[in-house]
């Protein structure tokens, strides 16, 4: 106990030293304002928070050692809950379909944006969560998708439905071209190269005024449905949707349409991802993440496997970008800063890397919650940062680390014993 007192005092003292100059002395012009209470409060909080933190940390440490037993019992009980999963999915889908009628226009806009972030999170999840490649310039592919639609419309009157595959493919091409040389290198270099690439794309979009309009951006039109427009009056001989269907015009139609379209795309993407994870390629991604040297010595071509993950992630990012341009009706480089990449990364990390459900929950959480807690807007990014660090301390391998697909010998289950041979015992 005496030892822990001393340590806590040390921690508090260091915290006080750290907080005094930055929070206690605030610059105003060339002078200073004194806020002598703030460092005291903060250091006091650190001092008092030391014991609960250490207690939790030790508890988790000892918990993680005996966790294989709890995982085992949880796994044996799984067949009894087999009906829960489809029911959960059905309920979620029903809620997703009813949501536009429950929420107002503003709420729907927020949820639509959240869906785009789910899409982006799913894309980055392939790269970071499954393949274990840290991509810090994911926003570049997002920007490629968004600008493909905006510039495509601006110069060639490209329709949304053409831009959707084209933007995705273009983003994938960018990803491949960038990824191919870099993926041969040491893993950490990828992070910094993608970071640099993201900034290059943003700076070019910002500076090449004659092509992209620079900081003023480019506008992008709203998508049409089989050539039918969502405006009150159609342009140049087009037919507005409400006239075609014989219903009254409502500005909500287009918002609902985009929302439902995104729900469809996100669901398709989730389905594809769930299948991909079980396919050999998905298994290889995860194997490569866990031990690259072992995989290479087993004859796996690490470059092509990584490239497939990187390209697929970029493709999904491009898809998200096209939707973003359509939703905003306007794109400019300020939407594609490094912070945006960090935000998407936070979605993947807080969702528990590699978990699809986690990504969905985290994306909803990180998009909807800030809208509800406007008063705490200043503390949003700070909290996200703290959560990222804590997540790494707590579960660096992601939430679903012990729930890999395993094959079990049927007789072992039938006789009431958990399968021993097929278990992943890590």
């Amino acid at each position, binding site marked *: 106990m005496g030892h822990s007192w001393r340590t806590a005092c040390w921690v508090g003292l260091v915290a006080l030293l750290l907080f005094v100059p930055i929070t206690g002395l605030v610059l105003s012009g060339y002078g200073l304002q004194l806020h002598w209470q703030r460092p005291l409060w903060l250091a006091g909080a650190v001092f008092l928070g030391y014991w609960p933190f250490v207690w939790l940390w030790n508890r988790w440490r000892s918990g993680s050692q005996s966790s294989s037993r709890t995982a085992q019992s949880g796994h044996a009980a799984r067949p009894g809950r087999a009906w829960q999963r489809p029911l959960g999915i059905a309920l979620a889908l029903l809620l997703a379909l009813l949501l536009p009628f429950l929420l107002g226009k503003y709420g729907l806009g927020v949820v639509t944006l959240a869906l785009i972030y789910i899409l982006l999170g799913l894309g980055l999840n392939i790269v970071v969560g499954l393949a274990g490649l840290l991509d810090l310039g994911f926003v570049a592919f997002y920007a490629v998708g968004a600008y493909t639609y905006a510039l495509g419309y601006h110069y060639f009157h490209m329709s949304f439905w053409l831009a959707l595959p084209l933007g995705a493919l273009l983003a994938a091409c960018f990803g491949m071209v960038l990824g191919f040389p870099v993926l041969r290198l040491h893993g950490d270099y990828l992070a910094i190269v993608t970071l640099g690439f993201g900034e290059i794309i943003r700076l070019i979009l910002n500076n090449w005024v004659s092509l992209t309009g620079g900081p003023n951006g480019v506008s992008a039109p709203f998508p049409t449905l089989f050539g039918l427009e969502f405006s009150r009056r159609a342009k140049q001989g087009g037919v507005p949707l409400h006239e075609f269907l014989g219903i009254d015009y409502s500005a909500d139609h287009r918002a609902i349409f985009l929302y439902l379209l995104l729900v469809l795309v996100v669901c398709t993407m989730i389905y594809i991802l769930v299948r991909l994870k079980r396919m050999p390629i998905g298994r290889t991604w995860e194997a490569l993440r866990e031990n690259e040297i072992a995989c290479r010595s087993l004859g796996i071509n690490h470059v092509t496997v990584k490239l497939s993950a990187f390209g697929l992630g970029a493709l999904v990012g491009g898809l998200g970008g096209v939707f973003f341009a359509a939703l905003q009706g306007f794109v400019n480089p300020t939407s594609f800063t490094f912070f945006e990449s960090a935000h998407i*990364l936070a979605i993947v990390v807080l969702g528990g890397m590699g978990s699809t459900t986690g990504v969905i929950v985290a994306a909803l959480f990180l998009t909807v919650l800030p809208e509800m807690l406007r008063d705490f807007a200043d503390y949003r990014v*700070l909290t996200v940062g703290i959560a990222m660090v804590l997540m790494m301390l707590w579960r660096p391998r992601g939430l679903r680390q012990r729930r890999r697909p395993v094959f079990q010998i049927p007789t072992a289950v039938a006789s009431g014993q958990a399968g021993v041979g097929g278990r992943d015992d890590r």
Partner: protein
Amino acid sequence: MDLYILAQQWVNGLVLGSTYGLIAVGYTMVYGIIGMINFAHGEIYMIAAYLTAIFLALFGLLGIQSLPVVLLGVLLLTVFFTALYGWSVERVAYRPLRHSTRLAPLISAIGISLILQNYIRISQGARNQGVPPLLDGVFRFPSDSLDQRFIQITYLQSLIVVVALLSMALLTWIIQRTALGRACRATQQDRVMANLLGVHTDRVISLVFVMGAAMAAVAGLLVTLNYGSFDFYVGFLMGIKAFTAAVLGGIGSLPGAMLGGVVLGLAESFFAGFVNSDYKDVFAFSILILFLVFRPNGLLGVPEVEKV
């Protein structure tokens, strides 16, 4: 081409490059010893910039006027507190992850980077901050020139180069000649073996973070005095540039960091002066990507052999 403009760009590049080099030291030493890219290092530099302004203002409030006393006092205080930040970051966010997955420390570093940026933004405000001009005056060569035909070096610019060289010399001396430096080199070569032979490797790694942060603090002080204005976002760009310098010189190599810094500074300054100043950041990032792709070991680095 005007020879004087060329020489002037040379001077500007050298000054810029020495600050890149100082920050790059932090990246290169940390990478050398634990093989990790410390993404939060740019924010450490940013904190140093704020601390410089805060301590300058504090000395102003206390009524200390003498320039050498102020400069030395601010330098010591800034270095001490920045190093404390560097040490705490390592202790809190990296050390517990030493035996974790490869990605964990990187993501943790991004988290720390977000935390430090917003910690500064919330406590000091998002607006641009500045420091009063302390050291005015220029050297001109030739001094009797009337039109544009001269090279000028401000006192501050020469101070930057001199202080950067002195700090690098001090650091090299520490690494090459002292027992601490020997422990650092031993840990870098083989951490487990060094540990077995009685080197307290955890303490050495902390020390490396402290030294890296101290060098970033020197850079933060010099750049802040030179440019006079900064905000909570300056660490991001400076961080990538300095990392580029570290890669350019060969990551893990101490003289390489300084060389890389100077080369990058010169290249950037010439590009901005003679090609296009809008795209000078794009140019720097392109150098980074090209070097990582075609010559990942940099100018002075040795090839990395991955052992099982």
